[in-house]
Structures are given as C-alpha cells and as structure tokens.
C-alpha cells in the first residue's frame, strides 16, 4: 500500500479548528494546570461543549465518530498544547470505544450519550501495584453476589481517576480476566489522588481501592476470559494510537519553541539559530517530527481501511513518536539553556511529559521487543497488506 500523505480538505479544516481551540483554550493555561496538578472544573465543560470528547462515540449516541485520521489530528493539536488534556482524550476515548464496540445495548444507551457531551468522564483502570499492561497478571478479583458482583483489589496510576464518573475496570471473575463498568460512586470504592508525578501533572492521577465494592450485574462489559482480551486490546489500541499522535504534537511544540528561542537569543554576538550545533538539533527535531507524523498518518489510513496491519503500524508510530518527543524535548531544553530549566518557558514541562509518553501505553522497551519479534515473523509487516489498490 502506498503511503498517503495529503490530508483531505475536510481534514485540513478540522485540524485548523482543533488548533484554534487548543491555542485559545488550552495552551495559555497549560503551565498553570501543570503546577496546580489539575484541570479546572470549567475546562471539562469547555472541551465537552466543543464536542472534543465525542470523537470515539458513534453518531447514534450523540458522538462525532471521528475517522482515525481526524481523531489523530485532534490528539496532535491538543497534545501540542497540553499532554494532560490529550491524556483525557486518550482514556475517555478508550472507555467510549470499548463500550461502543463491545458493550451491551443497555450500556451503550446508558453511557455513550453522557460520555459524548462530557457530562460523564470515563477512565481506564487496568494497572495494579503488581501488574502493568498485562491482563494475565491481574490480582483484583470479582465474585458473583446475587444479581451483581463484589470486587476487591487495588488499581494504580489511573489517569483522570480523580475526576472520572465511570471506570473501565479489569478484575478476575472465576479466575478469568473480566471487564466491568464501575461507577465512581460505587459503595466500597475509594479514590485517592496521586501527587508529585513527573509529567502530565494535570492528568489527575488516582489510586483506586476496592473493598467489597458492589456493582450491579449490568456492570459486566464483554465476555470474561477470551472476550476480555478483545475489550482490553480494543481500548489499549486506541490509547496507543492517541498517544502516538499526541507525541507528534508534543514534538512539534518542542520544535516551535526551539525555533522561536533560537531566533531571538544571541550568544557571542550570533543568533543561536546560526550556530551549527544548534542547527543540527533543529534539523533532527524537524525531520523526526515529520517522520513521526507520517507514521501516524499511515497507521490512521490503515485503521480507516479496517486493515489489521493498522495495529502493527500503530506500534511503530507510538514507538517512534514517543522517542522522538523525548529526544526533541531534551534538545529543546538544551537549546533554551538555563531558561529551559525554569518555569518561564514550557520546554521543561515538555521534557517531563515526553518521558511519561515513553512509559505509558506500552513502554519503549515493550514496543521494541514486540516490533522486533514481528519483524522476524513477518518481514514485510507494517508495509500494509494489499486490500484494495
């Protein structure tokens, strides 16, 4: 399959609208939100009213059902302004996607319209003290109790856990991994804020502790065991795709900041932009950011075609985009010198956020080993299987 580069007129217009929203409502405040460790209450209404939380919700339920490329552009532009806000798109989108794809009719009708407007916020609760993105390692348990279930266990590093109204939460039922929709108000669920995180500080991380937490029978999402793998994989795939695009935005923000600083700053009577070693950093930043964007676009087109190679392409995109974002952010701080270490410029935030991107939704090392294994099994994987030409 040929690599497609050109965006359609509609995609270009959507990107401009997302950029304008992000530059008006997010970028000017991102530094403050990072320091405060939270997004303000009003912002949830702002982003909800703009329709930006509806991207992974089907139109039948009030969503905008954004095609993959358009959803990617939204993540890029919001991620360029603030990685914490982009994280909201990610986890909320993962919950919307899981309910839309595998939820019952009742779950779709109950949750999707509210999730589409932002009246309800969704978060993804998989990680545990002893298990990361490994469904098989779950220690949280669920047991049947009358018409419902009782859940016991602990979840850690739950993005937007402080704010979420509903969690897509994973537990073992009869020793089979199972997904539940657990409301934040469920009796027996305690939500504790996590402070002092390295990056994406406004993503309102929480710990969840469940003790005899009762949920109704209709909380069960998808089928236990084998089916759970599909529910988790559907959500994690969207998350990885969202983060990949967000990292393109983050890398672009590093480039923008560096270009601007190197233009105005003089050292030894010469503008920074005219120092060759600075030029090399700018050149690499520009090139890698473009390459990351192309990988994301390729993943998006494949997903748009329903091509299963889109999943592998998403791994490549997330790996390259997140490592590019981190390297770009490190160089951006370097170019800014002492200013880069302080709070007057956003690049120190970019660096902290970019490191987080290399850890979440599949660490760099997990991506590397998976991509390497795939390369052995299918030398041409990722180039796209011929579906229609």
């Amino acid at each position, binding site marked *: 399959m040929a690599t497609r580069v050109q965006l359609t007129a509609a995609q270009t217009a959507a990107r401009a609208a997302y950029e304008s929203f992000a530059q008006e409502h997010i970028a000017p405040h991102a530094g403050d939100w990072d320091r405060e460790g939270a997004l303000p209450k009003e912002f949830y209404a702002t982003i909800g009213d703009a329709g930006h939380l509806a991207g992974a919700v089907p139109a039948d339920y009030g969503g905008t059902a954004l095609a993959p490329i358009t959803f990617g552009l939204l993540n890029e532009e919001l991620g360029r302004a603030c990685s914490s806000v982009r994280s909201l798109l990610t986890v909320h989108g993962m919950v919307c996607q899981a309910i839309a794809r*595998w*939820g*019952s009719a009742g779950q779709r009708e109950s949750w999707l319209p509210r999730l589409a407007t932002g009246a309800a916020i969704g978060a993804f609760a998989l990680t545990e003290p002893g298990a990361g993105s490994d*469904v098989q390692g779950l220690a949280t348990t669920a047991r049947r109790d009358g018409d419902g279930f009782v859940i016991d266990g602990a979840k850690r590093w739950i993005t937007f856990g402080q704010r979420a109204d509903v969690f897509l939460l994973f537990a073992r039922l009869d020793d089979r991994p199972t997904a539940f929709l657990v409301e934040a108000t469920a009796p027996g669920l305690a939500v504790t804020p996590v402070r002092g995180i390295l990056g994406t500080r406004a993503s309102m991380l929480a710990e969840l502790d469940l003790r005899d937490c009762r949920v109704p029978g209709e909380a069960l999402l*998808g*089928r236990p*065991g*084998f*089916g759970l*793998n*599909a529910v*988790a*994989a*559907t959500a*994690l*795939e969207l998350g990885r795709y969202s983060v990949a695009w967000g990292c393109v935005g983050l890398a672009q923000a590093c480039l923008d900041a560096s270009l601007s600083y190197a233009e105005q700053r003089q050292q030894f009577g010469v503008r920074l932009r005219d120092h060759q070693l600075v030029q090399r950093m700018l050149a690499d930043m520009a090139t890698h950011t473009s390459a990351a964007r192309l990988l994301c676009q390729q993943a998006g087109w494949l997903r748009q075609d*329903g*091509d*299963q190679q*889109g*999943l*592998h392409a998403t*791994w490549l995109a997330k790996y390259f985009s997140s490592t590019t974002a981190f390297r770009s952010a490190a160089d951006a701080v370097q170019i800014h010198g002492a200013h880069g270490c302080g709070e007057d410029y956003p690049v120190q935030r970019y660096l902290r956020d970019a490191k987080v991107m290399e850890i979440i939704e599949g660490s760099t090392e997990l991506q590397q080993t*998976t991509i390497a*294994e795939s390369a052995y*099994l*299918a030398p041409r*994987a990722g180039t796209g*299987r011929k*579906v229609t030409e």
Partner: protein
Amino acid sequence: MTTQHTTDGHRPAIRGFLAQFFGDHQPADEDDIFATGFVNSLFIMQLVLFVEGEFELTVEDEDLEMANFNTVAAIDAFVARKRATVAGD
C-alpha cells in the same frame, strides 16, 4: 460444533493470515493457535479485524469465545456459521 456448515473454502485465507505470524510453523487445522506461544496481545484484535474484513461479517461480543477462534477449523466453522446467519436474515 455445527460441522454441517463447515467448508474448506475459508481455510486458505485463514492460513494466509496466520502465515504472517507463524511463518514456517503453520498450525494444522486442529492445533490450538493460542497454545503455540507465537501470538501476542495484538493478535486477537488482528484476527477479529481479519475475519470481519475478509469474510464481511461483524464479530459480536457473544462471538468472543475461545472455541470460535482457537484453531483453523474453529475459525472456518465460525465464519461458515456467521455467514449462514447473515444469508438467512
């Protein structure tokens, strides 16, 4: 198993898909794909997308049972059953 719907017609495409993951270690029709250690967490989604795209059907939540996907023969039978349902609608 509703073997009366099973047809060998789907198997070449299924084997072609699996070849991407198994290379020269192609499982026999009744071998458990998930017991081989060749597939990772991505595989199940790729398999679902492949089955949906290749055979023009929708995998529903209730279809997500290991017994529908764990062997070439099982996938074949599942596809035959789903297509018979679609055709009968």
